[in-house]
């Protein structure tokens, strides 16, 4: 993985992609320019789990309650100073259509991830050495001479290529090539790249000697990619729930400042082999009266080392303490923690700098 933080000179995303494109044109490779398309993040905004949705609705695999039945619990309030959440991890990506090669869309993504540290003064600063920035090409694994030529040039330029198409069983026929579906798959692949890079940042972070000696906690915006010590994930947007039936009714009816009792999902289908077991619960941050039942509802994912009600309450109270200040400039403010909002702005500025001059940016 290429990790760099420079946004100057020939290392920028724009320069690298443009150079490849110019070489292709010069050599007469049959590709069509798509660089003026808007970023996929804009195209798929609000589309939920694009390319990730199970084909037959929401799958319920059941949960294992760890605090007795799933019920609502009032979260004890604490002074903000008592919170041990000091670090926040997030990532951002920007994915652009670059070329069309026959029926295959060729895209490229630039991903940034990092850790924000909240000082005792309340100031948020990007923790030095944590920023990861990566460029990847997204080229479907379709046999095509032009695509092969493209792959060769990209490899020669020292850049990485990801095939967004799902793994196929040996000897299986290639599915029918559909431009729109491949486009969605490219976006899904970009999200996965981002998750992978976030996971890398988290892993490097938790392996630091200073972290082990520390007693503060880190919050990951989104799912917790590994069951790391003193780390929690905050999932703020979801289309499926781990709870069903009366449990789901309890979750959707949570009053503000309350949580469900915790549970562990029986099947960890969202995580890889090394992900470890998770403890989960839901928290309602703000009053949802008159609003969508999922308004201000977040899911907390914690490593299984968090086990007692006292610990879960404590973590929940830290989350509640993060409700203010509110990032009201962002439509997701009801579930978006302010330090995460700050970090997002920093990362997006890095992406802006790296993609400055891109025709579709």
């Amino acid at each position, binding site marked *: 993985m290429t990790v760099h933080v420079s946004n100057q000179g020939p290392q920028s995303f724009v320069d690298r992609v443009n150079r490849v494109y110019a070489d292709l044109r010069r050599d007469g490779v049959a590709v069509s320019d798509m660089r003026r398309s808007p970023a996929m993040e804009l195209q798929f905004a609000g589309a939920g789990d694009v390319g990730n949705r199970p084909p037959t609705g929401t799958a319920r695999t059941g949960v294992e309650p760890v605090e007795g039945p799933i019920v609502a619990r009032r979260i004890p*309030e604490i*002074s*903000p*100073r008592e*919170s041990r959440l000091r670090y926040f991890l997030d990532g951002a990506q920007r994915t652009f259509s670059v070329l069309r090669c026959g029926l295959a869309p060729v895209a490229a993504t630039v991903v940034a991830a990092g850790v924000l540290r*909240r000082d005792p*003064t*309340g*100031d*948020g600063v990007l923790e030095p050495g944590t920023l990861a920035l990566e460029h990847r090409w997204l080229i479907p694994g379709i046999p095509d001479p032009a695509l092969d030529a493209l792959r060769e040039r990209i490899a020669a330029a020292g850049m990485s290529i990801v095939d967004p198409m799902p793994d196929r069983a040996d000897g299986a026929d290639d599915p029918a090539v559909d431009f729109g579906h491949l486009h969605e798959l490219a976006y899904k692949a970009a999200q996965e790249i981002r998750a992978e890079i976030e996971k890398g940042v988290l892993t490097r972070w938790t392996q630091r000697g200073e972290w082990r000696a520390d007693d503060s906690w880190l919050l990951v915006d989104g799912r917790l990619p590994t069951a790391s010590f003193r780390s929690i994930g905050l999932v703020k947007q979801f289309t499926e729930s781990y709870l069903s039936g009366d449990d789901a009714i309890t979750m959707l009816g949570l009053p503000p*400042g309350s949580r469900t009792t915790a549970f562990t999902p029986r099947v960890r289908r969202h995580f890889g082999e090394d992900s470890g077991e998770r403890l989960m619960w839901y928290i309602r941050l703000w009053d949802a009266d008159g609003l969508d039942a999922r308004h201000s509802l977040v899911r907390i994912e914690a490593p299984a080392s968090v086990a007692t009600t006292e610990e879960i309450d404590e973590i929940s109270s830290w989350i509640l*303490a*993060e*409700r*203010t*200040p*509110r*990032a*009201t*400039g962002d439509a997701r403010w009801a579930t978006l923690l*302010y*330090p995460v*909002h*700050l970090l997002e*702005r920093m990362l997006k500025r890095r992406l802006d700098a790296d993609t400055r001059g891109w025709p579709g940016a």
Partner: protein
Amino acid sequence: MTVVDLTAHPAFTANGHHASTTSPHEKYANFIDEATGVIGRVVGSEKEPSGAHVFAFWAADDATTLDVGHIVVAFSEEAAVVGVVDEPRRFSDMKSFLDDYFDRRMEEGLGGELITRRPEMLVFAVRVLATRHLRDDVDSHRPALGGPVYFATPAAIDYALGREDFTGIPIPALMHTNGNAARDAAGLPITMPDGNVVFQRSPIWIDSDYLLGPEAGHANWTGQSGLATKTSHAVFLLSAVFQKLKAKGRTVAALMFNVKGPDLLWLDKPARPEPEDEAAYEAVGSRLLRQQDLDAYTALGLEPAPFDGCFRIFAPFKAGQAPGGHGDATVRLDEMRSSLAGKLNTIRDKPSEFGPVQPILLDLGPLLGIPHKLFDFGDLDDKLSSFIYEMRDLGIQSLNQFDDQMAEIDAYFEAEPSKTDWRGHHKYTIQKAKNRFGGLHHKFGGLLSRSVVQPGDVPQVDGPFANQELRVVDIANCKTDVQELLVTRVIERVWRMAELQTLGVDTVIIFVDELNKYAAAGSQGGLRDTLVDIAARGRHLNVVLFGAQQFRSKVDGEILGNCGTSFYGRVGDEEIVNAAYRSLSETTKQELLGLKKGRLLSRHAHFRAPLFGTFPLKPTIDGMMGQRIFNGQGDTSVSHHGDGLWAVIRNIPGLPPERVPSRHEVRTACEGVDPREVEKAMQQVSTAYARGVTDPRANPWRSAQQILNRARTRP
């Protein structure tokens, strides 16, 4: 002509510049305070791009001393950009004030400090003062690039204020204080006894060629009375001009009009007392020069010295005391010199301090040339004007002569009852003239004599000037008619001398307070026309106008438009909304609304943007304090009956300093001598040397000693 393809030449860039390896940051490293370091970064956005005249930068969190009015440096591609910090704004990502309210009040327990501090960035606008390109022959206007911003060094400030382009003598007008620390030779911050750092200060220079001519000229002060320190700064600037021109061998004099109390009557007395006067200064609570003032004078290269070179106060007589009664053909001013104290309309009237005071007395003759100043506009019709010109042609010089002429005309009509006119003037017109002229003596009481005035060797208010002479015309206690006539007459006469090149010095500065009264916007005639003329042509004729007023918007636009230098003190809100201030930024206007005493906004021909600065206490004692100390009665008065003699000798133009005795010496010599005899000696010396020392052998102090010795030995 040889045409060279510059782009083909490796030593040149495509723009034709020599491909220098030096960046402006390197070349102008002496412009930036590297020791303090970067204090912010230039930002230009789509909505607020950086421009040639204004750009913005955000301030570093630790640049806490940075503030409005400071001078900073940024860079464009090939130039250093120096500007003055203007409008500050703090930004946060909060969409509405309500957000913060709800953040803190929506639920119990949220009222305290928030767990994460919402970032607030401080962005300052910068008004560009100067841009210095790598090449001296390029006048760059390219905006600053996004990049670091530094505090400017004195070298950068000097450059930004056009010091390199000065053609005349640099005159320190104000002191600019920046937000960075002053440093010693080792580069360490200089600290005060209390541990606070001393901020970097640098003079705000103005170019004498643009203040006193010939390139530009004139200065103007505006601001609220009592709060704007207009007169104090005018006195300070005059002192600076006098000192700097003297050092360069140029001659200069000034004429001021004292319009209020004792404001300008004690400009020959120092703000820093002589050792023997310290107790008296302290007793009346006179503000002494503080150490910071003395430091400022040192930094500006000035001495905090009063105008004791040649200081003269001119005043008319008190109403009803003008010499020359009915029947007196002439009045000789030089013969009554010894009896003038108490008769002139000035509150500096203590005999021992009366030395610099000189009388003003006019006769009718010269005034017949300016009838519009003598009579009300409604009275002065063509018929009366014609009769007045007849009187002038007949050589009428005094009211007594006029009365004689009237008697002659009356006799003519008595002898010829059938006649209705005399020399073509209807007898009713003559009757009207007789009536109006009859009231002049009272209308201009104290100023207009009935007789012909013969000044003898008494210095004249409208006579040629001596080098370094400060001439104050005291009209504070005069009624309006006298004030207007006197101001008009004196300025017109000085202007006439300028046209005839008989000023006696290279440059004469005329200071006129209450300019909105003498040259009101929209007015016409009289003094306004003369002042406009001075403003327009004075710089070529070596007369410059220093004007001051409370309301700039009410002063004639031509006068203001011709001022190469302007100073603004505190301005009231009803005034600042006027168009006269439209070129100032909103922040600058807000600053002016609450400006502290001793701080002014300056504009000068060399400055691209106005600049705030401070000045030390003026080098002379406050007028009111001077009045109490030197003119008072009782314990607070320090005056000795020999002080007047000392002042007269010291003020003799051209007297070498080594022949000026110390005050203590004069006081000792006067001990035991009747004060009236001392006064006689003073008058005699004053008369003998009214025109200064013309004979190098002359020794006024020795002459005075002889007179005193004779008086002492007289039985």
